[in-house]
């Protein structure tokens, strides 16, 4: 057991820190620091800056732009990005469909999609969830029927995050209606400009527009856009969802927001022992989470997932929510002024506090709810 980073890792951290704080455009980092919504252009520019330096998709195979980093180095890369207010590479591209295509796609598919995916020339959306299949993803009903060289897709997807910017969408579709649940599912890549495909915005409770419904009405998809084999989509989806061990818990950004919260609180940290104690308790909980993430990356060299990794998403989202709630409490009555515009005396951080708090209630729902996480821990780890 040892505490310190090796000299090599310490140098690596310094290199990352320098790159992120000097090479990524300031307007983008300022927007992240202010907890304001990034424009599509900002997300694209940020990722292209990273990609130009070979830092957008380190988890991919080296031949497609990946890095042969240790898990600890990937962890450092991921944390430093967050601490430096750099937007993470778009998850749909970098963590989801990219690795799936690299693993299961044909050579042709790889060449067609991977470089553009790494560089965010294609903005990918995710088409997994359906209105009647929440946590029970496998009960999906969107169908793809083979018709010559094409599949004809009909159905509806929902909770498609940033689908309004999407160029392509990777979907799970039912190709064998007779097979039981998981068995009849395939993964199809669909051009979002295809006739019959429409995107409808869903407004969230913070007033923002970040998720969408996607409707498919006789959408014709070339058969070459099938990933891997027909009816194997569930395996690819499991690979996709289980792929990421590094960066499951949003530690770095939560740390940053907590540090910002202390600045917002200012003198009150000294005057209000209850507030100071709450901050100290959160810092300690967050430290435990970060150390758990470090344990997981340090011990996952043998390729098997570390059992503690399952706590990262669960606890990570809880703490993310606790910290957004803290900021609202520090804002106090100013937290009401979410709609304040030019001329208001309410500082910007206080205006975004409640919308962010409301928005982050999603963190424990999306991407495998915390109930699903508890179920996984109980069943898989504890054998209950």
């Amino acid at each position, binding site marked *: 057991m040892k505490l310190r980073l090796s000299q090599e890792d310490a140098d690596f951290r310094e290199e990352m820190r320098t790159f992120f704080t000097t090479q990524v455009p300031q307007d983008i980092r300022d927007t992240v620091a202010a907890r304001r919504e990034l424009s599509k252009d900002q997300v694209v520019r940020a990722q292209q800056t990273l990609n130009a330096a070979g830092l957008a998709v380190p988890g991919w195979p080296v031949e497609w732009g990946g890095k042969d980093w240790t898990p600890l180095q990937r962890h450092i890369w991921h944390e430093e990005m967050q601490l430096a207010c750099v937007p993470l590479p778009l998850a749909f591209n970098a963590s989801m469909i990219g690795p799936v295509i690299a693993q299961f796609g044909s050579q042709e598919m790889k060449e067609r999609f991977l470089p553009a995916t790494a560089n965010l020339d294609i903005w990918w959306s995710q088409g997994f969830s359906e209105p009647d299949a929440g*946590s029970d993803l496998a009960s999906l009903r969107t169908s793809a029927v083979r018709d010559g060289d094409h599949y004809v897709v009909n159905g509806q997807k929902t909770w498609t995050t940033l689908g309004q910017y999407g160029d392509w969408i990777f979907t799970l579709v039912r190709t064998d209606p007779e097979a039981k649940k998981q068995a009849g599912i395939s993964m199809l890549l669909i051009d979002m400009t295809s006739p019959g495909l429409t995107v409808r915005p869903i407004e969230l409770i913070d007033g923002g527009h970040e998720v969408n419904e996607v409707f498919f009405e006789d959408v014709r998809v070339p058969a070459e856009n099938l990933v891997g084999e027909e009816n194997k989509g569930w395996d690819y989806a499991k690979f996709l969802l289980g792929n990421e061990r590094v960066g499951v818990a949003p530690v770095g950004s939560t740390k940053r927001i907590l540090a910002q919260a202390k600045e917002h609180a200012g003198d009150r940290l000294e005057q209000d022992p209850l507030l100071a104690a709450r901050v100290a308790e959160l810092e300690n909980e967050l430290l435990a989470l970060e150390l758990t993430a470090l344990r997981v990356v340090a011990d996952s060299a043998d390729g098997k997932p570390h059992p503690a990794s399952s706590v990262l998403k669960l606890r990570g989202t809880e703490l993310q929510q606790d910290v957004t709630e803290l900021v609202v409490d520090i804002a106090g009555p100013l*937290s009401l002024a979410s709609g304040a515009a030019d001329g208001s005396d309410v500082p910007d951080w206080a205006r975004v506090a409640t919308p962010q708090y409301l928005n982050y209630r*999603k963190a424990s729902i999306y991407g495998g709810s915390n109930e699903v996480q508890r179920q996984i821990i109980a069943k898989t780890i504890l054998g209950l």
Partner: protein
Amino acid sequence: MDFTLSSEQKALRDAVRGLLTSAYDSTETRREVVKDDPGFSEKTWARLAELGALGLPFSEEDGGFGAGPVEVSVVAEEIGRTLAPEPFVESVVLGGSLVAALGTAEQRSDLIGRLAEGALVLAVAHEDLGKPVTATQDGDAWTLDGVKEPVLHGARADVLLVTAALPGGGTGVFVVEGDAATRTGYRTHDGLRAARVAFDGTAATPLGEASDAAAAIEDAVARAQVAYCHEALGAIDVALHQTVEYLKTRKQFGVPLSTFQALTFRAADMYVSAELVRSTVSWATLVLADDPDRAREAAARAKLQVSRAARHIGQEAIQLHGGIGMTAEYSVGHYTSRLTAIEHTLGAGSDQLRVLASSVGEHGVVEPIA
């Protein structure tokens, strides 16, 4: 000891409920109403006046109906149940209480009379960003300088009641015509309205004497806090009820969510929170009516309990709904948003706790009945 409503009070409840559930018959209706300024329905406001709801707590000689805190609580709870955006607590309870406590006979008759008729929206400009508004006297004339923000419903208000530092020390309350101030209105996250209100040598009239009104302000704040607590009770009730219904009807993995004990136990805990907070809030209303010396303590206790319950139930209501609970088309998230806003209006739970903690050594047991 009696926690039940009289038949008159039940009739009032039913009438207000009837009015508000027809005015806000769906989430969409409310979203339409709050989309445009002033963020509430002038028609519904007028109907509340016709029903007598806006004059309830005031003496008959001032133009009110001589009812008490219980009747106010009945209206506030229905406001909460429907998320009605009309400024009942702001205008009638907070504003009206100040006028009733401090105003001259003439001011009372004028302002309360118009308020009860639905002809007046009052806003109390009390929050500032650490820099109090100052009042300056020149002969009989007073002017105000400074900024208040956020002032709930401040842009729409016909008349503003402004708390301001008096030249000789202490805090006074001043009446300012809405138009006389520079106002920038905006939407709050719960769909309601607030404003930055700036005074720059703005003409103002003292509400009653221009003397320190701190005690009257605290008392009016306590009344408004308890009314907000009732508004929260109404919202809590609906959020709980909707969550329970969702668990009964929504299917996952081929069975209703109510099959999952981990979820139903959490609903049970929500119910426990809801019943406990109802007890404290109802008690606080009775204290306002029967034991005014304890009004501030009771309001602090009620608001602390509401803070805990509102967070618990508001957060769990969304979580147990899952994704649908996050959407603006569905109502449960609006309840959570409104509960969050109520918590941060007139002092949060943590503020109440600080006050209660500082006096915890001064009594043995807490006795609810004097």
